Every structure is written in C-alpha cells, then in structure tokens.
C-alpha cells in the first residue's frame, strides 16, 4: 500500500507477544492489555500511510501503544476521581484537600527497581525470541511460556518428539547466547 515495507499481516506473529509483554507490565490486567494491543494494531493500520520508515516497524507500533496506555490511565483515573468525590463529601472530612494524591491510582506506584528490571528482562527475552526462525520461536513459546505438553505440540505442528527436542535445543542455545550478549 505505501512505499515502505510494512505488512500488517505479519504483525500478530511478529509483534503481538512483544507488545503484549510491554503492556502487561504496565496495566497488570490481561484483558485490558489485550485490548490495548488490539487497539494499537487497528490504529497502526489506520495511520499506515503516515509511517515514514524512519524507525523500525516495531518501534513505531510501540510508540502508538504508549499513547494507548497513557489514554487508558487517563480514562480510568477520571472515572476514579468522580467516584472519590462522592465518598469524600459524604463523610471523612479530615482528609480533605489531599484526596487526589491519596486516591488516584498511580501507575508508577509498584514500579520498584526490580519491577523495572523485570520489565526489561521480559522485553529482552521477547526480543531474543523474535530473532529466532519462526518455527523455533513458535515451538519454544508453546513449550516454555505456555507450558503445553510435548505430545500436544507434536500433534498440533505435526512433528515427532525428537524433532521437537532438537528444535527446543537450538532455540535455547540461541536465546541463551542472545541474552548473554544483551542482558547478563
């Protein structure tokens, strides 16, 4: 459609996990995170013509996703504020004046240093998985992250068990090497 290489058909396989991981560390709730990622893809689709190819496709999607997450917090915060006012004016008047700071959810609240580190770790791992050949990435995710049984995976992908272990072995070696370079 546009001159730059941008292909929405590959988005889900390529970026869905990365973006989802990015979101889940920021909004906690799986459902919401999914919706936000989905919205991001829609928004990306709409503004595909504006994509100049200056950044990578993923960076561009992440920048859209960031706006979506911020919007999400704006929305729930404004709802919270309204609810809080009612509570506040009916009783408990000694806390007056400080309700905003106290009650409005702070998105950075639980972001202690280890959480930040974990966020980055999750992204680093997904980054490394993203570099694998598609088949390896798929098998590794199913086996390790989703915890499917060996047999179930073999049936679904139509491969033998020893085949699966070879794929897993290659994937693990590659990911370990990649993480060694970028993380440890």
């Amino acid at each position: 459609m546009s001159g730059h290489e941008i292909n929405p058909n590959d988005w889900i396989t390529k970026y869905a996990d990365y973006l989802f991981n990015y979101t889940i560390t920021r909004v906690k709730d799986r459902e919401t995170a999914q919706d936000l990622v989905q919205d991001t893809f829609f928004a990306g689709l709409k503004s595909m013509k504006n994509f100049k190819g200056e950044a990578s496709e993923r960076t561009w999607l992440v920048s859209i996703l960031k706006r979506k997450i911020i919007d999400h917090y704006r929305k729930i915060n404004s709802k919270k504020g309204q609810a809080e006012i009612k509570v506040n004016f009916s009783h408990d008047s000694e806390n007056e004046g400080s309700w905003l700071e106290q009650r409005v959810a702070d998105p950075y609240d639980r972001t202690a240093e280890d959480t930040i580190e974990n966020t980055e770790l999750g992204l680093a791992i997904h980054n490394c998985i993203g570099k694998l050949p598609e088949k390896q990435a798929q098998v590794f995710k199913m086996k390790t992250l989703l915890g499917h049984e060996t047999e179930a995976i073999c049936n679904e992908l139509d491969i033998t068990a020893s085949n699966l272990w070879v794929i897993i072995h290659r994937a693990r070696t590659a990911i370990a090497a990649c993480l060694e370079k970028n993380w440890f």
Partner: protein
Amino acid sequence: MSKKNGLIIPCDEANHTCDKTQYREASLWEKIKLNIHLIYCRACRKYTKNNSKLTKLVHSEAVECLKTSEKKKMKSALDNEITGQ
C-alpha cells in the same frame, strides 16, 4: 544411544536430557546418567548451568505470552479491519 544401559553417555545425549530436565520430563535414570556425565564434562556443565538460568528467567513472572487462541482472535479481528479498508 549405542550402549543402552551404559553409565557413560555422549554429550549430545546429555544435552538432550538436560533440555528435558528443564521441563521436568527426564526420568530418574536419565538424570543419574546426566549427572555422571557432568562430573567429567566441562562443556556440558556450562550448558546445563546456562540452561537452568534461562529456565529460571523465563519462569520469573515478567515474561508473558499470548495464548494461541487469543492470538487467533486478534488475527481475525485485524484481518477484518484490513479487508474493511
């Protein structure tokens, strides 16, 4: 796997067992053989160490992944949107 019940196993088999232990799928006998192998094989010791480290990292809560069904749902919704344009 030439010597079926030998205590000494080659490196590739050791690595295979090591991969299996990461998913708790190795039998006790396999684990014994792996550990005997690790006594004298430095390369496999290193591999095993890295491998367990990776498992630990992946299982820390930070790493999330979409279920296949969830992805399918997203995909079909996106496809609809693409054709709708």
